[in-house]
């Protein structure tokens, strides 16, 4: 029994669980900040992203060190490979939260708020549920509901298209607020990208489980 090896894998799993909780909180807070255009909360999220990136890098380093020192195989190898890839997507998801916060500052700065796209909240909530569910699957194991999560990516894509059409119409009708609407264009794009990253994570969870690359 390779006790130190198993212990190092358990330690990485604990770190990943903590990271998942932080990501979940960050996504929830980002919506709160976006909905209320709360500059203070947006600033906390924006500056807190560096801490998340540091945690992600620490997990990546642990994952690589185990791979280098313990030459894992089979399930362990697939788990560590998948974790490395998933960490990249997690980092991008929280970067997108910081990006959204950056445009909350712009929305507050550029001549007062405008009406956000009507489907923004639903689009965000679907994306957020994808991220939460996929990280739960990663941490708990198994692939139940993975198709459901992947299907939600289509819902987010449709919401993105609809939001873009709506914003385009508003830009024509309200030319004085074009800069704010550009911020919303970028925000809905970030939400759509976050859903894509969640979908990428499902690919790696499937690889970990089945040794099948999509």
């Amino acid at each position: 029994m390779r006790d130190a090896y198993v212990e190092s894998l358990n330690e990485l799993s604990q770190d990943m669980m903590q990271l998942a909780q932080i990501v979940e909180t960050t996504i929830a807070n980002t919506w709160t900040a976006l909905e209320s255009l709360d500059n203070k909360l947006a600033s906390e999220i924006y500056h807190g992203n560096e801490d998340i990136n540091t945690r992600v890098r620490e997990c990546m380093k642990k994952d690589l060190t185990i791979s280098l020192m313990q030459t894992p195989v089979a399930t362990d190898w697939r788990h560590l490979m998948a974790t490395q890839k998933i960490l990249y997507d997690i980092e991008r998801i929280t970067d997108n939260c910081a990006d959204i916060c950056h445009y909350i500052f712009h929305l507050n700065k550029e001549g007062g708020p405008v009406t956000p796209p009507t489907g923004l909240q639903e689009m965000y909530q679907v994306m957020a549920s994808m991220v939460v569910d996929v990280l739960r699957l990663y941490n708990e194991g198994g692939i139940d509901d993975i198709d459901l999560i992947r299907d939600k990516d289509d819902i987010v894509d449709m919401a993105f298209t609809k939001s873009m059409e709506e914003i385009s119409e508003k830009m024509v009708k309200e030319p004085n607020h074009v800069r704010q609407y550009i911020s919303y264009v970028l925000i809905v794009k970030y939400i759509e990208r976050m859903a894509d990253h969640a979908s990428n994570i499902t690919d790696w969870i499937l690889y970990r489980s089945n040794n099948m690359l999509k």
Partner: protein
Amino acid sequence: MTELTTTLTGYAAQARDDAHVRDEAAAADITQENTFDVKGLNLFYDKTQALKNINMTIKKHEITALIGPSGCGKSTFIKTLNRMNDWIENCRVTGEILFEGRNIYKEVDSLALRYRVGMVFQQPTPFPKSVFENIAYGPRIQGISNKKKLAEIVEESMHQAAVWDELKDRLHESALGLSGGQQQRLCIARTLAARPSVILMDEPTSALDPISTQKIEDLALQLKEKYTIVIVTHSMQQARRISDRTAFFLLGELLEFNNTVDMFTKPANPKTEAYITGRFG
């Protein structure tokens, strides 16, 4: 003459008579895709069963790695492939091993079989003779006495064993003065000089340093172009690096046999997974 020399010389005439067996086997070599077909193999040491119903196909020009914890039967199994277990008292074998389509216990003479199925052991076993004489030993026993022919065989075997460049100027020095890695490659050259089609390797690098190990592994990968190789190893990394297929033995049973990539990425048997990930054994 040593006892071994006397025995082997005595076999020489028989070996020449068996030439037609080798020729026929060589002919079979052209058509047979499988080098060995093992069917329902059981092996007993007195009342203790060391191998239990082994079924396995070893394909030509592949490296097959045998892995498993100590005492699992992998070394016993590899020795059945050239009937080395014949020499063990109270050893009894049931089932079939077909070598290039012929039952090695019924249709092939054991000596002729060992010419075709050579073996390299854990510890290098050079004879207390010169480098040249070590390699020429097998061909001499087979009846080749022409000096030019012997020199050709020695050089060709040393080239194939990747030891010519290092030892070509030391041909008449004692093989006992070589490094462990050189001695092991010399033993491989000695095996090749007997013109086998299969090389069995029983933990051939366990006594060697990493550089010598690397040379033996590189050599195995080159040799599989011309030979079928079966290797017993305790190194999971070695099995992964060089073998095409891997067989996992446990308590005398063949628990899993699969191509090496699949075996080390998604083994079918949880016990294989537990062993190769180091969770038991």
